[in-house]
């Protein structure tokens, strides 16, 4: 064994990245492997709720207590990823009074600050709540940007020496003499940042310990060594509205149920969700009834939702786990708690532990517990510091001031950039070159896009999750080609640090982004959003001819087409050259 143990962490969601940061801060040598982008799995497909614990205050008080504790930690270490919106548990006349009381007592028992507000008071805060809402309990729920949080964790892990490999799929576990000694990975485009068109290849990564944090995919990793890690993936739909109909998290105050939460998130509001067990975390039906149910049921709380515009829907797969002997048949009965499965104890195979179950809000706590466990294996005595040391971007609140004048950015672009970047704003936005907005819906400037490209290679979806570019109302209709140009980047802004990729690479990344943006919109195609989709389709296909681009297809015989009339027929040039006075536009 090397003097510093090398730990391979499988999974680039919140859990894996939390573990990687923790271990790296404790001085271990860490390699994190993620099959797609960071947040590719469940983390990138959640409703963005920072739990107060209120949702578990009746059914699972241990989880509720963990949630409120971590809620406070994240507000502190990840301030630039969190918006403290507050939350309401709303009771309608038909909802149980007993349950309302139970919820209130549960919150008190778990140390969750909770106050009862009247229907009138609730509507003062959220005017679009239904007129017949009786009352509500207010709790410290918040909204959190899972992409930004994971990226900040990754940056911190890298600062502490970790190697982060995205688009690197674990294809096998290396087992020698009854012990896991590493992993075999298939790199999509070679090690390091993803660059389209770069040749991939497989690599054997030897490790002193392996942590399986692959979430819904943990069972597949287990299979590679003949281990039974029975994750029970459960899908849930989330429907994104084009504006924030509410500025507070709205929960329905009743026992478990579908379609009972609205989370304001950046410029949107996210409706959730369903809970249905699926066989395969990558291949499951995304169904119309689920979207319809979100709108119809949540309209009972916020009536205007029934006529509002949705911009897309997406599904996430919860990596639920329960010890097989529990045998729940309904996925809503499966605990949201997490489990450490040490395969040496459990299966007699050393060198690896799987972490399964759990939830986003407590990712850091899970990371701490498994990092303690890993350190124990090596007799390392190192304190966890992840609860105290702020994430990159959240280090110094004093920089969160209004940058509009300083960077020549018009409101609200400057403010939003700074909110996203937090304490990194100075470093990213200070540029001598002009800094125009590339994505107008989300107010994302060139400097932010270039910063994201620097972090993530030629992958525009990775740029998207870092910046929110293309995630607003137009869903990339107006900015996908601009992002591709930023990637190409040659000579842009005279900025010599601008990252340059060749045209073929930029085109491939562009197409991938267009396709990704299309995918989620398919579940929002009626009304305004169908009109928007028709416009995007027309812009991309008509003016840009992206659907029939000769660069992608067969060679064109240019000589067979009109070569112009003007040089061959000088008489005709009169029309062009004439200065026709005030209205010679053409």
């Amino acid at each position, binding site marked *: 064994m090397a003097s510093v143990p090398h730990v391979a962490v499988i999974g680039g969601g919140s859990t894996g990245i939390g573990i990687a940061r923790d271990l790296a801060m404790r001085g271990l040598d860490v390699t994190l492997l993620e099959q797609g982008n960071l947040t590719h799995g469940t983390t990138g497909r959640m409703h963005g709720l920072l739990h107060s614990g209120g949702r578990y205050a009746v059914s699972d008080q241990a989880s509720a207590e963990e949630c409120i504790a971590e809620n406070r930690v994240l507000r502190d270490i990840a301030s630039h990823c969190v918006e403290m919106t507050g939350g309401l548990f709303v009771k309608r006349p038909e909802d149980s009074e007993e349950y309302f009381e139970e919820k209130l007592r549960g919150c008190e028992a778990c140390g969750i600050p909770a106050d009862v507000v009247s229907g009138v008071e609730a509507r003062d805060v959220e005017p679009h709540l239904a007129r017949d809402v009786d009352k509500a309990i207010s709790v410290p729920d918040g909204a959190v940007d899972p992409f930004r949080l994971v990226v900040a964790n990754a940056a911190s892990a890298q600062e502490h020496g970790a190697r982060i490999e995205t688009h690197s799929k674990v294809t096998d576990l290396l087992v020698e003499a009854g012990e896991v000694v590493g992993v075999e990975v298939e790199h999509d485009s070679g090690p390091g940042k993803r660059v389209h068109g770069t040749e991939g290849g497989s690599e054997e990564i030897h490790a002193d310990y392996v942590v399986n944090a692959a979430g819904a995919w943990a069972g597949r990793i287990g299979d590679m060594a003949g281990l039974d890690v029975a994750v029970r993936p459960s899908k849930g739909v989330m429907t994104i509205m084009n504006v924030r109909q509410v500025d507070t998290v709205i929960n329905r105050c009743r026992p478990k149920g579908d379609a009972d939460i609205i989370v304001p998130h950046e410029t949107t509001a996210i409706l959730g969700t369903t809970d249905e067990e699926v066989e395969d975390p990558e291949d499951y039906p995304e169904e119309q009834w689920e979207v319809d149910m979100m709108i119809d049921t949540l309209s009972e709380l916020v009536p205007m939702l029934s006529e509002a515009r949705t911009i897309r829907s997406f599904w996430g797969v919860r990596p639920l786990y329960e010890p097989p002997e529990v045998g729940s048949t309904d996925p809503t009965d499966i605990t949201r708690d997490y489990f450490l499965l040490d395969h040496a104890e459990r299966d007699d195979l050393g060198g690896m532990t799987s972490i399964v179950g759990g939830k986003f809000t407590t990712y850091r706590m899970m990371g701490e517990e498994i990092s303690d466990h890993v350190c124990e294996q090596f007799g390392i005595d190192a304190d966890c510091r992840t609860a105290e040391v702020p994430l990159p971007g959240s280090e110094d609140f004093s920089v969160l001031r209004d940058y509009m004048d300083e960077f*020549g950015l018009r409101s609200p672009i400057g403010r939003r950039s700074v909110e996203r970047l937090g304490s990194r704003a100075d470093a990213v936005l200070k540029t001598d070159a002009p800094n125009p907005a590339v994505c107008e819906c989300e107010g994302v400037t060139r400097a932010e896009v270039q910063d994201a490209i620097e972090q993530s290679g030629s992958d525009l979806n990775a740029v998207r999750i870092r910046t929110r570019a293309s995630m607003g109302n137009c869903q990339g209709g107006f900015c996908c080609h601009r992002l591709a140009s930023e990637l190409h980047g040659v000579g842009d802004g005279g900025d010599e640090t601008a990252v340059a990729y060749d*045209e073929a690479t930029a085109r491939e990344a562009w197409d991938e982004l267009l396709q990704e943006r299309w995918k989620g919109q398919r579940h929002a195609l009626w009304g305004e959003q169908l009109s928007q989709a028709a416009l995007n*389709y*027309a812009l991309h296909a008509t003016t840009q*001819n992206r659907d029939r681009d000769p660069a992608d297809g067969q060679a064109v015989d*240019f000589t067979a087409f009109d*070569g112009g*009339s003007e040089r061959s027929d000088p008489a005709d040039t009169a029309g062009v050259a004439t200065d*026709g006075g005030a209205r010679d536009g053409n």
Partner: protein
Amino acid sequence: MAIDSEVLVIGGGIAGMTSALSAARAGADVRLVSYKQSTLRHASGLVDILGYTPDGEGPLTDPYAAIPDLPVDHPYRTVGESTIRDAMALFDEAVPSYRGAHTDRNALVPTHGGTVKPTARYPASAAAGLASDERSVLLVGFESMVDFDGPHAAAHLEAAGVPFDVRGVTIRFPGDLRADAKVTRYAKLLDTDSEVSVGDRDRPVREALAERVGAELDGESRVGFPAVLGDDRAGTVRVALSESLGVDVFEVPMGPPSLPGLRLEDRLFGALDEAGVSIETGNPVVDYECGQPNGGDDRIERVFIEKNGARIPYSADEYVLATGGLVGKGVESDRERVSEPIFDCHVPHPADRYDWFETEAFGDHSFARFGVATDDRLRPTNADGGVEFENLRAAGSVLGGYDFAAEKSGSGVSIATGYTAGRGAAGVSA
């Protein structure tokens, strides 16, 4: 007493304007009403007829040759090839600043995405940029204009196999424009040739721009700019730059807001004015009434326009529906159905909204062909194939049965059906 005309055209896009112009030229007393900004501001300003077959074959060199093989319910089949030619002749005469009429062949025009697009007509401002012209090109982008990146577009054109050398550069537009200046700001500066401060002195912007571009020229025979070279005085701006640089200058058509599209709109409105068409913009048609409201009569008697909260009746003998498709909101939808909002004309569509689209971003989307079906006189028909109203004709993208984006046929269909509907409404038989 209703406001009266012989023909009332609803919609101010290419189809509506062509309808109104055709009806007026045929001698009718015509009124055109339009509500929102027309979708021309979203369009490149190129006037295409047919670039690809519905099966994706192309780019077609000769759009007319492909008409007979189109599906029978395609609007081009309804109006027929010779009508398309007559309609294009009307367009060419009404908009003399467009080129391409000298041949039936399509032109391939570089657009801001950096690829080429087949089109039948193009503004004179784009004429020197044709991709079948073998002279070398320098593409100039402006640092803070994110919609057009010269080096990226040049590399993309090269990948498309264009038969000329092409190079791109990015320069700073002279003067102190803000990073998020609108394209119209650039255009107005160039129109007025305003003084801008460069270094420590003020100079006319055209001269300053030409100097910066000239420093980048390396023997290229033509220079392409994003389509911001002037608005009202675009020809003058282009000629001035061309003379200073000593090479041809052209514009690369862009996305919204598209100056070439807006200039085309101005030209067409000018032609309508000259033809004596009354034009009213900014208020929606919200309802209609038949002669005998309780049925039995399928003639529209009047429509109602909402103006400051009041419903004003407008009556006409004949009506043209040119309100656009999904993009222009002439076709609307909710979770249950697709509809035409003014007259509730039947819009054929699959019952399940998940059948309205395909999985691939550029798949064969059903929604792209949403619109009304018509009889052979372009009168919308109901689910049984009967005419909805005796005196209502439809033109442009409110029509179903064709995917203008995939085919690159949007303007051509609007012009051809607008012409047919306008003349039909004025009593000229097809």
